[in-house]
C-alpha cells in the first residue's frame, strides 16, 4: 500500500500515461535517427547521381580525376581511404590496449588518474592541430630519419625500393596513417580503460588468487570479459579514421592517382572533398564530389559491418 502511494507521487497522477510518453519519446528519438540517416543517403544519391550516370562503374574503378576534361574516377581516393584507415587501426589498436592495460593494472593509483585525463585530453585536440603538427614537425623528421635512410638503404630494383619509393618530404600515405593512429588512439584507449574497469574485482582477485600472473589475468580474464566491447572500440576508431579530413589533407600529399608504395603521396575521399568542394563550379565536379561522399558512406558502413561480423560473432 505504502509503496503504491509513493509510486503515484513519483510518477504523477497516472503511471501508464507517463510510461506511454516516455516510450513515445524514445521511439521518436530512435526513428528520427534512422530518418536522418536515410535522408543523408537519399540526398547524397540524388546529388551524386549525374556522376554515377555519366561514368557508371568506371567511377569506382578508374583513377583518372581531371576537373578540366570533366573525367572523374575515384579509385585513388577510395584505395587511399582504405589503406590509411587500416594502417592506422593496425598501429593504434595494440597501443590503445597497452595504454589501457597499463592504466588499469600496473599504474600506481596516484598517477593513473592524471594520465587517464591526459589521454582523454588528447582526444579533444582539434584535427587541424594534428594536421599542422604533422606537416611542420612529423613530416620533416620522418623524411630525414626514416624515409631517406630507407630509400638509400634499398638496393636498386629490389622490392624494398618499390615499397619505399616516393618523394622524400614525409608527406605520404604512411605518415597520414601515423597521424590518424595518434588521433584515434586516445578514443580507443579511453574506452578500453572504461571497459577494463567494468571487469568485476572479484573475478580479477579470484584469478590472482589462483596464482595467475598479471599477463595471464589480462589475457585470460580481462580481454575475454570485454570482448564484445572491443568491437565497439574498433568501430569507433575505424569510423573516425575513415572520415577524418583536415589532418589527412595536410599530410597525405594529395595526389589523385593510385598509390604505388607506402611512401607515395595519395589522397582519401574526405581529403578530396575538403580540397575541392569550395571551388567546384561545374555541376559535374560537384556531383562527382557528392558521389564520393556516398561512396565513403557505403565504405564506412561496409567496413564497420565486416568488423562487427568478424569480432562480434564470438560469444564469451
Amino acid at each position, binding site marked *: 500500500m505504502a509503496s503504491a502511494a509513493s509510486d503515484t507521487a513519483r510518477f504523477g497522477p497516472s503511471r501508464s500515461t507517463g510510461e506511454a510518453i516516455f516510450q513515445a519519446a524514445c521511439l521518436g528519438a530512435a526513428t528520427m535517427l534512422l530518418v536522418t540517416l536515410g535522408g543523408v543517403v537519399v*540526398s547524397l544519391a540524388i546529388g551524386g547521381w549525374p556522376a554515377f550516370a555519366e561514368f557508371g562503374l568506371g567511377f569506382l574503378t578508374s583513377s583518372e580525376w581531371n576537373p578540366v576534361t570533366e573525367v572523374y574516377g575515384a579509385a585513388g581516393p577510395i584505395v587511399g581511404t582504405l589503406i590509411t584507415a587500416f594502417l592506422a587501426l593496425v598501429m593504434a589498436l595494440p597501443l590503445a590496449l597497452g595504454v589501457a592495460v597499463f592504466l588499469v593494472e600496473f599504474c600506481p593509483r596516484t598517477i593513473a588518474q592524471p594520465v587517464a585525463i591526459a589521454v582523454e585530453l588528447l582526444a579533444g585536440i582539434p584535427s587541424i592541430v594534428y594536421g599542422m603538427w604533422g606537416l611542420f614537425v612529423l613530416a620533416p623528421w620522418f623524411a630525414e630519419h626514416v624515409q631517406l635512410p630507407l630509400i638509400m638503404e634499398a638496393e636498386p630494383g629490389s622490392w624494398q625500393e618499390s615499397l619505399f619509393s616516393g618523394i622524400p*618530404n614525409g608527406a605520404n600515405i604512411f605518415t597520414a596513417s601515423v597521424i590518424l593512429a595518434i588521433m584515434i588512439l586516445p578514443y580507443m584507449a579511453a574506452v578500453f580503460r572504461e571497459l577494463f574497469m567494468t571487469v568485476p574485482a572479484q573475478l580479477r582477485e579470484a584469478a590472482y588468487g589462483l596464482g595467475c600472473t598479471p599477463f595471464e589475468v589480462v589475457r585470460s580474464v580481462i580481454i575475454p570479459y570485454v570482448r564484445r566491447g572491443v568491437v565497439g572500440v574498433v568501430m569507433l576508431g575505424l569510423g573516425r579514421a575513415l572520415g577524418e579530413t583536415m589532418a589527412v589533407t*595536410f599530410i597525405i600529399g594529395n595526389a589523385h592517382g593510385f598509390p604505388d608504395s607506402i611512401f607515395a603521396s595519395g589522397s582519401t575521399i574526405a*581529403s578530396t572533398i575538403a*580540397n575541392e568542394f569550395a571551388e567546384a*563550379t561545374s*555541376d559535374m565536379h560537384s556531383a562527382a564530389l557528392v558521389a564520393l561522399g556516398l561512396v565513403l558512406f557505403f565504405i564506412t558502413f561496409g567496413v564497420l559491418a565486416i568488423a562487427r561480423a568478424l569480432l562480434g560473432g564470438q560469444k564469451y
Partner: protein
Amino acid sequence: MFKKFAGAIGAAVILASTASAAMAGAISGAGATFPAPLYAKWAEVYKASTGIGLNYQAIGSGGGIKQIKAKTVDFGASDKPLKPEELAASGLYQFPTVMGGVVPIVNLPGVQPGQLKLSGALLADIFMGRVLKWNDPRIVALNKGVKLPPLPITVVHRSDGSGTSFLFTSYLAMKNPTWASKVGASDAVSWPTGIGGKGNDGVSAFVKQTMGSIGYVEYAYAKQNKASFVLLQNKAGKFVAPAAANFAAAAAGAQWAKAPGNYVLLLDQPGVQSWPITGASFILVYRNQADAAAGASVLKFFDWAYKAGDATAAQLDYVALPAPVKALVRKQWLANVKAGGKPVYVAR
C-alpha cells in the same frame, strides 16, 4: 534538388553569421581568399570612419561565384574573372579591385633567391614532369654561371582548388601548347606529377622541406616568408623579379577599356618590366540590383577603397590598380549597376 538544399544550407549559414552585422547596415560579401586580408583591413578602417561594417567570408573564388549566384551575399569575389558570356547569362557585372602576382619558389641548395632564371615554356615542362633533374641542359643553358646540383626535381602544387592555380596553369597553357592540350587551365587540374599542399602554407611548407622542389605561391606569401623566388622571362624576353612595380607594369599595358565584361588576364603582358604571372582580383555584383541601398553600399565601399586604400594595399604587399583603370571602373558603374533603371551609386 540537392543543389537547392545545399544552397539553402549555405544561405542559412551566411544569414546566421551575418544576421547581427546586417542589422547595423553592414555589407556582406564572400569569395576569394587571396584578397581577404586586404578586404579585412580596408573594412576595419572604413568602419572606423563611416560606421558601416563589411562582413567578408573568405570561402574561395568558386564559393564566391556560387554565393552571389544564390543571392545570399551583396557581392561575390573571385580571382578568376568570369567570361563575358557567363556574366551575361547570370546577369552579373565584374570589376577589378587589386592585383597580385604568382611566384614560383624553389628549394635548391647553393642557389640564392632571384638567381635562378626560367622561361614559361620550360616551367611548364618542369611541371609536366618532362624535366627531371636540376642540372638538365635546358635549365643550365638559361643559367650560365649558376651552380646547379644534380638533384631530382620535385613538383609541389596546390591540392585545393584556387585562383592562384588558375593564374598559374593559364600562364603555362599560354606558353606551352603541350600543357594547353594535355593539362589545361583551371583552378583545379589533373596535375601530371608532384605532390599537393593545402593552401599557400601547404605548398610553401613542402617546398621548404623538400630539397630540389619547385612550387608556386602568392607574391605576398613568398615575400613574407622570404622564399627563394625565381626570375621569369617575360614577353619582351627579359628576366624579371616578382615585385610590385613589375606587377603594375603588367597592368599598365592591359587593354581594360577594350575587354568586354572586364575579362582581363594580366598574363604574359608586353613591356620590359612586366612580371608574366600577374592577376587581378574581381568583385561580382548584379547588374540589376533588387535593393538599391545594398548595391550602393557595395560600390561606395570600393570607391572609398580606390581613393583611400592604396597605402594599406602596399603595406600588405598587394598592388593597387593604376589610376586610369580605377576611373574606367567608376564610369562603368553608372551604366552597369542599376536599380529600377537608375544607377545605384554615382562616384564623385
